[in-house]
């Protein structure tokens, strides 16, 4: 395994590129990564089209260009690890077992979505699949994930919690309070930051006065890693190592994944405030293309990649069909479920 340290003076950061094959991964694993990357991209591209056609009510939030962070990390976890994803982590949901049908039904407000129409877009979770439900206020999930880790530690369970968030979320108090609490109590939690360089229209240079989000984590005493978030093998490997260290009682770890938000904050946002050159640079670093590069390096036959792509196309269309045929909730159900019985 070669490790190259690549200093990139643009945007004032360094990235660690892990090239080549990762020890312990076979072609089947790489194809599995590829499937989840393609499925994430395929589902999100489909809801974008639906949004443009006016068939989605409410907002449309995608993680285009950031899929390797969610997929690569989720694939490196154990089944009982609990994740607290953010709005650009569909890939992590899918790895944990959320289905394309449920995703589409959620967007279309159907009873067959994970919230029965009580919430929309990617605001869902499912404790049976070890996912904490995401809510709109950024960084709110961080203390909650910290509390999940507290339960694991108290009960001496070997699981870890993983909190996902972006550069913008790292400015909120809950980020700081959550990281500090995790560090002081030495909790088994992994913090994964998508530094996609923009929080809505606010560039990261306006979000913080330090060069890396990881610098904020250092302030709380956490060991940090800064990696290329668009390299799925880097994400997978770094997560696997960090998870093992945390599981072994080493305390919380912070991984900052450098990436780029390739679309607007949401689909109503044309993101005209993002310099075109920045987008072009990152278009050349697309995480799916990078995964294809690894597959070809491994000499995985092209027809297997095509088979994955065909499978994804089919699943996406079937999911939309399922959602459109699913019932909407009845109005009075709005009154139900406020309290647990």
């Amino acid at each position, binding site marked *: 395994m070669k490790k190259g340290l690549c200093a990139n003076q643009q945007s004032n950061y360094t990235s660690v590129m892990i090239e080549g094959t990762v020890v312990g991964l076979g072609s089947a694993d790489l194809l599995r990564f590829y499937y989840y990357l393609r499925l994430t991209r395929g589902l999100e591209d489909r809801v974008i089209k639906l949004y443009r056609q006016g068939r989605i009510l409410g907002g449309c939030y995608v993680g285009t260009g950031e899929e390797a962070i969610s997929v690569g990390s989720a694939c490196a976890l154990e089944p009982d690890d*609990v994740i*607290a994803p953010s709005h650009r982590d569909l890939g992590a949901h899918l790895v944990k077992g959320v289905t394309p049908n449920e995703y589409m039904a959620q967007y279309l407000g159907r009873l067959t979505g*994970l*919230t029965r129409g*009580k*919430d929309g877009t990617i*605001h*869902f*979770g*499912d*404790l049976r699949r070890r996912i*904490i*439900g995401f*809510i*709109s*206020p950024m960084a*709110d999930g*961080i*203390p*909650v*994930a*910290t*509390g*999940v*880790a*507290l*339960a*694991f*530690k*108290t009960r001496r369970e070997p699981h870890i*919690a993983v909190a996902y968030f972006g550069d913008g979320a790292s400015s909120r*108090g*809950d980020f*700081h*309070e*959550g990281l*500090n*609490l995790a560090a*002081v*109590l030495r909790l088994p939690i992994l913090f994964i930051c998508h530094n996609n360089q923009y929080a809505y229209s606010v560039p990261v240079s306006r979000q913080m006065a330090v060069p890396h989000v990881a610098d904020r984590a250092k302030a709380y005493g956490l060991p940090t890693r800064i990696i290329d978030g668009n390299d799925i093998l880097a994400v997978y490997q770094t997560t696997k190592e960090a998870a093992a260290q945390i599981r072994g009682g080493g305390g919380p770890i912070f991984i900052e994944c450098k990436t780029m938000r390739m679309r607007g904050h949401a689909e109503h946002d044309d993101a005209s405030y993002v310099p075109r050159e920045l987008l072009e640079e990152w278009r050349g670093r697309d995480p799916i293309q990078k995964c294809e590069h690894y597959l070809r390096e491994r000499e995985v036959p092209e027809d297997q990649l095509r088979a994955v792509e065909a499978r994804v196309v089919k699943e996406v269309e079937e999911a939309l069909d399922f959602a459109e045929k699913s019932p909407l909730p009845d109005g009075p159900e709005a009154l139900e*479920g*406020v*309290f*647990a*019985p």
Partner: protein
Amino acid sequence: MPEITYLEAIRQALWEEMDQDARVFLLGEDIGVYGGAFKITKGFLEKFGEDRVIDTPLSESGFVGAAIGAALMGMRPVAEMQFADFISCAFDQIVNMAAKHHYRLREPVPLVIRAPYGGRLHAGPFHSQCPEAWFIHSPGLKVVAPATPYAAKGLLKASIRDPNPVIYCEHKYLYRHAKGEVPPEDYIVPLGQADVKREGTDIALITYGAMVEEGLQAADQMSQEGIEVELVDLQTLYPLDTDTILASVKKTGKVLIVHEAPQVCGIGAEIAAVIAQEAFRDLDAPVVRLTAPHTPVPFSPPLEDYYLPNATKIVAKLTDLASY
């Protein structure tokens, strides 16, 4: 039956619930080594250990959020706000994360937040507030406010056993000023039940917390004038026991609502609206509220005395109402 203080009742509830349910644990500032700002958790760290009595850093939002996460994993956290005034630091976690979770995902959040509230201790604007209305107004939360040691213990046990987020408002003045009988055996006071503390036929006095005792004193004085006051102690502020309230309204025809929280949009406003809507024909007078004025809680004793309702002011309002 042994007579104990309100503070001791809370302590017993916490101790007994922790003793019989390993999922229950405490977190908050100064609750462990120091035994709590009001010494409620003195001895708990020694008995239950640092896994279950957690001294947190100074971060209400962080540790309330953590309590939510632990609750989602099946534990039963009781998070302590050192003063209810600091609950606003955790407001977002409470109203956005805890309150809405079950509605959206049908997963319980069995969390209790203890909030020492109320004035009369010369503690000023940031150690005397009554924030109940903020949480009554946020769907997905239960809010309780016991007035006696019996209710303090029973309601805290019930709150801990409830699978929903409960804001448990414990009145600081009552900690040592309220004494009462508490049965030695295990018991609960169910949420959602008001308690008629005194029966009467002439005026319904609806109140909670430290104002219950003030109301009872006022009622005794009115009795000497031949006016019999029925006092309804709300106990639970949400969900409100409207049946008990409306029964007292029907019986008496005149209503005085008393609360220490400031007037505008306090729970008195909600109760008055419910009564006007559901019991208009039972009323012989407008519904009257006696509350703190709509100002922050002042510090200097003459200011705070002017600010707070008390038995004398209640008597004045009851007297007016009696002759309406």
